[in-house]
């Protein structure tokens, strides 16, 4: 069988050793679950980053269906020093998709572990396996008329809660900070042991998905954006579906309005008057998700000039900034909060408020309202059509929820993107005290020159933001090593000490968030 195996090998692996491991994987999982042919591996190699696919090509992919199989995979990897890259649904678009961080890593694909293990509609939580998608959960909740509401990121229907939460992704409802709503993980460690966080280690406990902290050190966060274990179950809290949901938009005409938007929003968010993860989308984000294409307005290469953006605003009624938020509760609660919100924006004297009744089924209001009420859609993928060519990398620095800071970041990002002939396509999201300043670095990946520019641009964004004391909260696999450096050497030392203790053979996703025993301080 050896001659059928992939030409790609894990870093430092010897062909014979690799082939032996593959044979053991076949014995454990069945041949149909050990993928080594190029056509089988191609779906795992579709990336959107500014680098050739080959840099993130897997040597094999394994599909497991049970925790015991995951334990078996880990055992074989230890025996043969084979590095594995675990995915749940593999839908981490713009962050690396399903591809491994290093060429040659073996993908452990857990999509087939797709059981909704438990939903408790009274205690409002779910316990799921890695392959469960938000679409699957939505169907289940809808079919069974459960009084619950999901929170998810924009790829909603096809992505899943476990993967999104483990990468500390966010959504748009009051439960939009997903890791905050996580409660209880089951993790297969490199030793093969099964570790349950929080109350999960207590025999007979019924509070694993109820009480997060357990006893002693609380380690859940250690497994997110990390490579210390393979999460095979995760619990998370679900929001009760409110009797009244009132989405709204406030449209602002000028770029500099971001200062006042954030200032007026912060107290409303901190007080809980506006409870959800508010979005403030700029004109190009709005345009992309409403299916405008750059080619409709300009054919010259480079960034889209401001007068064109103004023309787009004039033609469509979109704002330079477009705030989307919602109120949730009983009619009395929503009415009271609505008055506070309207009064606040009236006092500001800026911003056109649009209600659901006024917007009707127009986009992007419709899909924004759906995301804020837990209804999945893929409308936001329209962003990828703005420039075309399939290149997308999220640059997502954290900002204070302070108007002057958001404006400073917006100006800095726009200047750098324009220098490289790319557009500033951005939204501020989450709050109440922070803003994830999420920028989609869109480029034509079929154009080698533009791809090279996008790569240089992303590096400069990281460098220049770091000089101002800013860093991203999450990044694609091409830049994880670079971003790890932004957070300081002591943090990295600690992370590698933990790695040595838990995974001395460095088999679990080496390189994830810059944690790699084979390279750290070895140069």
């Amino acid at each position, binding site marked *: 069988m050896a001659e059928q195996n992939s030409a790609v090998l894990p870093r430092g692996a010897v062909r014979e050793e690799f082939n032996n491991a593959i044979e053991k994987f076949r014995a454990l999982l069945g041949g149909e679950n050990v993928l080594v042919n190029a056509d089988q591996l191609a*779906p795992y190699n*579709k990336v959107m980053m500014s680098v050739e696919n080959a840099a993130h090509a897997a040597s094999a992919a394994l599909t497991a269906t049970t925790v015991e199989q995951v334990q078996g995979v880990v055992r074989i990897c230890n025996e043969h020093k084979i590095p594995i890259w675990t995915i749940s649904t593999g839908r981490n678009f713009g962050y690396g998709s399903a591809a491994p961080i290093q060429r040659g890593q073996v993908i452990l694909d857990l999509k087939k572990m797709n059981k909704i293990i438990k939903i408790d509609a009274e205690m409002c939580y779910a316990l799921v396996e890695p392959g469960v998608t938000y679409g699957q959960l939505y169907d289940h909740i809808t079919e069974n008329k459960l009084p619950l509401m999901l929170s998810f990121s924009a790829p909603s229907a096809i992505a899943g809660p476990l993967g999104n939460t483990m990468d500390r992704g966010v959504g748009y409802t009051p439960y939009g900070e997903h890791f905050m709503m996580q409660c209880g993980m089951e993790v297969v460690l490199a030793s093969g042991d099964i570790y349950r966080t929080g109350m999960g280690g207590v025999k007979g406990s019924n509070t694993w998905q109820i009480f997060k902290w357990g006893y002693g050190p609380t380690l859940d966060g250690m497994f997110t954006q990390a490579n210390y274990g393979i999460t095979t179950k995760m619990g998370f809290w679900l929001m009760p579906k409110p009797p009244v949901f009132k989405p709204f938009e406030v449209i602002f005409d000028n770029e500099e309005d971001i200062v006042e938007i954030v200032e007026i929003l912060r107290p409303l968010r901190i007080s809980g008057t506006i409870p959800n993860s508010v979005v403030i989308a700029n004109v190009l984000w709005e345009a992309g998700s409403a299916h405008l294409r750059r080619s409709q307005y300009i054919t010259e290469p480079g960034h889209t000039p401001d007068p064109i953006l103004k023309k787009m605003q004039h033609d469509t009624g979109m704002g330079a900034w477009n705030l989307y938020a919602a109120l949730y509760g009983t009619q009395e609660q929503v009415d009271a909060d609505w008055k506070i919100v309207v009064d606040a924006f009236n006092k500001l004297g800026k911003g056109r408020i649009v209600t659901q009744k006024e917007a009707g089924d127009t986009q992007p209001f419709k899909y924004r309202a759906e995301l804020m009420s837990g209804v*999945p859609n893929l409308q936001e993928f329209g962003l990828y059509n703005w420039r075309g060519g399939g290149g997308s990398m999220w640059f997502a620095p954290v900002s204070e929820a302070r108007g002057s800071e958001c404006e400073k970041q917006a100006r800095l990002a726009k200047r750098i993107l324009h220098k490289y002939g790319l557009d500033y396509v951005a939204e501020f999201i989450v709050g109440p005290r922070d803003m994830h300043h999420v920028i989609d670095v869109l480029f034509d990946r079929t154009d080698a020159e533009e791809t090279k520019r996008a790569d240089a641009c992303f590096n400069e964004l990281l460098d220049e933001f770091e000089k101002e004391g800013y860093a991203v909260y999450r990044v694609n696999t091409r830049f994880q090593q670079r971003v790890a450096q932004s957070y300081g050497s002591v943090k990295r030392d600690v992370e590698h000490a933990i790695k040595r203790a838990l995974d001395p053979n460095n088999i679990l996703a080496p390189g994830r968030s810059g944690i790699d025993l084979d390279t750290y301080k070895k140069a």
Partner: protein
Amino acid sequence: MSDFLSGKVTKRMLFATVLPFALVTASIQAMADGQWGSGKNLYDKLCGLCHAPNVGVGPVIAGRGLPEAYIKSVVRNGLNAMPAFSASYIDDKSIGQVTEYLSSLPTPATQP
């Protein structure tokens, strides 16, 4: 989506709001039928979220007589912004089913 909780099965067992572990076991049965149960289900729950005529994110694929080999190639490899899907996500049988379903749909008024 048939590899997920079946509506009928679930409803029978959902007298209580708390679902036991044993509830969620439809996936093995569904595998024999194709992961997605039918081409319509796959289109409604996945493909159509971008490609339905009233969405407009991706090109319309219904009623165009697209061959199975072409659909499979795009599904497995992706195309520009279209993501790739492995067999663990969409199995070959489901691709065949959705091809058949797409061919059964009316030709779009305007070809993309």
